[in-house]
């Protein structure tokens, strides 16, 4: 989990660099809102997948 967290952090950092490069003409708060929303959705989707997997394992056992 630590590795995954580190990888996510690196990915976020690199993405942040690209964001800053591509959104110079846009409002910072607006862009930040979009990014946070996107990342929150992705996180939620991942958690749902994990929960689903755990349930499958419990039913099999």
């Amino acid at each position, binding site marked *: 989990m630590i590795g995954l967290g580190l990888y996510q952090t690196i990915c976020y950092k690199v*993405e942040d660099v690209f964001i800053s490069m*591509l959104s110079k003409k*846009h409002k910072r708060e607006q*862009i930040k809102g*979009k*990014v946070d929303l*996107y990342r929150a959705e992705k996180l939620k989707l991942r958690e749902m997948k994990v929960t689903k997997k755990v349930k499958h394992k419990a039913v099999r056992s």
Partner: protein
Amino acid sequence: MKKLVIFLAVFLLMLPLQSVVEGHSGRTDSSGGHNCSQKSISKGLCTGYHYHNGGGSTSSNSSSSSTSNSNDKDCSDFATYDEVVQYWNSKGYSATYDPENLDGWGNGNVDDGIPCEAPTGYDKTQINNSAEQIQYNKEQQDIQIGNNQGYSQGKSDGYKEATANSSITEGSDAFKQGYANGYNNGYYEGKSKLESEKVKATNDGFALGQKQDEIVIPHEYISHESLKSTFEEAFNRAVTERIEVKKKEYSELGYKDGKNDLYSLPTNVDTVYVTAYEGGYDKGQKDLKEMYIQQGYEAAFTIVEYAEPDLDKEKYLEWYKEGFLSNTIVDEIEEIAFTQGEEGEVMSIPSNYEKGETIFTYYYELGFQDHEKQVKQTQQTVAGGLGVVVLAWLGRRFYVVRKMIA
């Protein structure tokens, strides 16, 4: 004093008469004989009743000379029988001449020629003119004659190398015995003589064979087959040895020429010597070729690429190249060295390949260069792959950002 002289004279006159009656131990009876006394028996001079001095004869003439001689000996006068024989022999008595009648009875009559009575087992051949002595002498004579004849025949047979045969059918036993002894001695002598003559024949034959090729057998050996063959053998041996020595000389000359590669066949010599020269020459050529082959073989350990050496003749170059190419050890060295280098190991020449150090080092370096190339290529591949991954990842991140801010 006068009485004494008369007494002595009478006494002296009486003495001879007493000798007639008592010339021996024990008195004789009226027949002139008596029983043997214990003393004489113990000395072995007589046994039982016997006669003396013609006793037993009624003739008034008997033993007249002996009985009248006071010096006559009687058997009992001797201490041993050897003395009897010694006396008998010294007097020259015999069966027909026995004036003292020591031999049996009778007044000089013939008896057995044995004085008194010889002890049992006594060697009567010592008694002169005894039958035993006569027989003994005859046998000795026969032995001598047989010995002489046997020796002559044996010597002849031995010299001729005939089968020894020492027996003879004719003649007395003594003659046969002498013949056998003489034959054996003669046979040995004959053989010895022949052996010494064989030695001489060998020396003569060998000496002649050393000088010439044509045999000339001396007259003294022609008549004896064995001597003749001995002479011939020695002669042939010498000739053979002489030829062999000469053949060896030509063979050595040929070998020397063969090694120097200068063919110079001798002229005006027998075929055997020409053959010997050619044999030696071929051997020399063979050794010369072997030498160049060996040079080429050794060169292969130090030369990576074949290079023609500076040699006089084309065939030397061929031999050299043949030796160079025949070195298969070099192939092994190449393979091992290259593999060692290719695998990136530290160079280590096996002890049995130390001779080919140059080759080994060269091929090791070739292999090591390959190894380095491979390593570099692998590194480049890894680096390239990593770059692609990073680019893909960055692309993904860029795509995500575009999606987020869209």
